[in-house]
């Protein structure tokens, strides 16, 4: 019995660093502005953001929360929007088809909010946004004109891996995603 417990403890101790490394999720941001444009790569461990953001107290950004000032936001109940999204069944909420400007759809599917924009014409952009509902819930939870970025990062980390935002046009490509690797694979 004692040997079994010691063996189990040894295995757990050996496995702990592997588990910690494997569970770490990284937020990657890639921006490419064509051959002669800027190129930006950002790779941040989400756990680091969770720790750092609550410690920042600068202007409207305090304790991981951003206060959105302005008369426009006073009329918008962000929490109500979040609740409505949570309560809604999977399906398309918004669908706009424009012959000249392009197509836009907003839908909910499998706990994700999906936004698709396919512009038409010169410089047309193709946008894909895939945001976990838990992220939206955490972000909008404070209410009162505040959004909780730190809690949203925690929710993002818990939600797993995947693409969040992709914007593509003839001259520009932006990609934001979460995975378990420190290196940002192309």
């Amino acid at each position, binding site marked *: 019995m004692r040997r079994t417990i010691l063996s189990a403890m040894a295995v757990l101790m050996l496995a702990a660093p592997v588990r910690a490394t494997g569970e*770490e999720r990284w937020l990657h941001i890639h921006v490419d502005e064509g051959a002669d444009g*800027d190129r930006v790569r*950002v790779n941040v461990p989400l756990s*680091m953001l969770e720790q*750092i953001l609550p*410690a920042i*107290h600068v202007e409207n950004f305090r304790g991981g929360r951003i206060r959105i000032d302005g008369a426009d936001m006073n009329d918008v109940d962000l929490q109500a929007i979040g609740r409505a999204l949570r309560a809604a069944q999977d399906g398309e909420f918004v669908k706009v088809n424009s012959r000249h400007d392009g197509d836009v759809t907003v839908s909910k599917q499998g706990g994700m909010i999906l936004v698709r924009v396919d512009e038409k014409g010169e410089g047309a952009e193709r946008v894909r946004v895939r945001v976990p509902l838990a992220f939206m819930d955490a972000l909008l939870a404070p209410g009162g004109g505040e959004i909780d970025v730190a809690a949203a990062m925690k929710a993002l980390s818990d939600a797993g891996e995947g693409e969040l935002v992709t914007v593509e046009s003839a001259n520009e490509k932006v990609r934001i995603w979460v995975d378990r690797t420190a290196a940002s694979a192309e």
Partner: protein
Amino acid sequence: MSRTAKIVGVTALVLAVLFAGGVTWAAVATWQAGAIRVRIQDHRAGGTDVALVLPAVALDAALAVIPDHARAEIELDAEAGPILSVLENLCDDLEGHGDFVLIEADHQNERVRVETKDGFLRVSVESAEESVRVDIPLASIAKVARWIGGSAPEAGPSV
């Protein structure tokens, strides 16, 4: 051998051991703390190359000998304390994540790269005119942030 000669011999031996121990300790401390390295290479014709290596233990020693009243005289904004605290936490956290590229940005002919490597924060700037590389031990940044933060208004009474 006379008694005096024995005393002199033993004293010399003790001093030699202490000296050797001190040198060894200093070498180990210097090696463990690493060094702040700054290298600037000017690629233009006649440009100058500069290489600066400062052992991090020298920085620790400098922080230790600066009198408390001098630190108390550092005037910081009310918002500086939390930022320094964030910087300290950030450095501690970065050390736990191994080597990785935090930010890499290319703008026209200039490339900026911020990465962690072997417990150092490395900032590299490459352009056609010059290359700049700065390596600072993350622990040193955290120490300086902690030290300066001690004089910040929100960080409590100054020591």
